């Protein structure tokens, strides 16, 4: 409530945070949950190794305001390009974003292909978290609950 009082124009968002099918890492997801909760949002954290079908069905049920995918195992690019189609089929207008280390070579530069595949934003630079916070703030300011 304090957070709402401090930012009266910002809406409290329902956000699904999830890892991708082949990625076992969870610290990134634990951290993202805390970041979003401290911004005043409600988080459903699906955890690691979420199969495509489970991700799409959970997102379909939850009807969230935002879906945040995190991946750091190097398979994120492949997993993400595969799952965005089924996700879009369930959540046509919902922002879906992804961040982390998305390829095995650490080179980055996959944002354009993921944006073209249907993601609304990709965060894989050194200052990904500040960029991500600003993105969520803008989204939150534009949504009325």
């Amino acid at each position, binding site marked *: 409530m304090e957070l709402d009082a401090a930012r009266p124009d910002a809406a409290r968002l329902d956000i699904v945070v999830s890892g991708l099918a082949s990625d076992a890492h969870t*610290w990134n997801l634990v951290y993202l949950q805390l970041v979003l909760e401290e911004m005043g949002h409600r988080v459903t954290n699906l955890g690691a190794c979420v199969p495509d079908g489970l991700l799409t069905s959970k997102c379909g049920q939850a009807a969230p305001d935002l879906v945040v995918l995190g991946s750091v195992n190097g398979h994120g690019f492949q997993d993400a390009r595969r799952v965005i189609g089924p996700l879009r089929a369930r959540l046509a207008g919902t922002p879906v974003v992804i961040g982390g280390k998305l390829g095995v070579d650490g080179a980055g530069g996959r944002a354009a292909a993921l944006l073209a595949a249907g993601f609304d934003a990709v965060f894989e630079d050194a200052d990904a978290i500040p960029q991500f916070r600003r993105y969520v703030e803008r989204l939150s300011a534009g949504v009325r609950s």
Partner: protein
Amino acid sequence: MTDRSFGGFVARAAAAGELVVQPRMGVAGPARMRAGLAAVRGAGVRAAGTITVDSFTRVGEHLAVRRALDTGAELNGYPIVAHSPGTTRAVLDGLRGRDFPVQVRHGSACPQKIVAALLAAGLDATEGGPLSYCLPYSRVPVAESVRAWAESCLLLSDARERGARPHLESFGGCMMGQLCPPSLLVAISVLEGLFFRQHGVDSMSLSYAQQTDPGQDAEAVAALRALAAEHLSDVDWHVVLYTYMGVFPRTPHGATALLERSAELAVRTGAERLIVKTTAEAHRIPTVAENVTALVTAAAAAAQAEPGGPIEDTGVLDEARALVEAVLGLAPDVGIALVRAVERGYLDVPYCLHQDNAGRTRAFVDGDGRLQWSRIGALPLPAGRAVPAAAPTADELLRSLTHVERAFDRPSPRPQE
């Protein structure tokens, strides 16, 4: 008959006063996998080889593996189930032997196909465990993982009939990579060892991952050895130490110093084997050359290190013993005891998101750089084992997660001494 067993190799190295060093290494293509193993074997150090399985295979997405192989897409490891036994035998031919055992590393909660594939290729050493590859890494219910690991142990132990002595390592000392207090790591390693033994495995290793404080880590490895001696005296066992598994230093000097401290810790505590990390850890999957450099660096640091030295007692052994005994008291069958222990929160891993994990414990790095409980939930520990700490905000969690990285990335060339 020549002893080609993994445990025998480690025991001979220990008798010679040498630490076995081992990388994580897996690439999709058989020729490149073979080249990687050859480079490790030829590194000039007492090394064990590793085939790390890709993460599609780990979670059983064999169609995704096939698609990646067909299209040339990236895989982050060697797809041992998709490659034929003949292919894997050819990868190993002339490399694996008495002086170069090879372990398959995979991370699967349900590893039966992986175990069958490695056995079919003539291998007999792998790692994991019903809790350590379930809670942090999977969505598989603990009870199902327990069944899968019981089957996998039986598959492995059956290989004794062909004259092998299969070896299984518990990954229990590495839960979540970081921020799991030492007593719980030690307890899970010992309990998984007891589970392996119940299911017919008689050569095993127990793990512990370097955490935030060398003194606390030395105490933990001593506790692990003490409990293993008490509970596993009738099987072959050794201790495998892991170089820090958490957020890794980004600078070459920091990453190298952390690796060297882990090698020194291994020697100091009598750990027989070390799984290394490379200077690339913070950035990407390491190359073969980076792995070889890490092996050489670790072996050199180990050769300079002194065994023994004082070990303090801050209660790690008492805590670990309390956890092990409380869990074993839940059922005569170790697998059932593990399932009940997770249900009751007797084993409750901090920050673990698995649906079966109680999620009532928390841990943090205190002002002295030591790992402490801030909430013990239902862990069967004496009251007072938790240190009151600030609520884990995102910033506070990040501070604990990056404590080691920050300490080692400082410009000072030899931190924490």
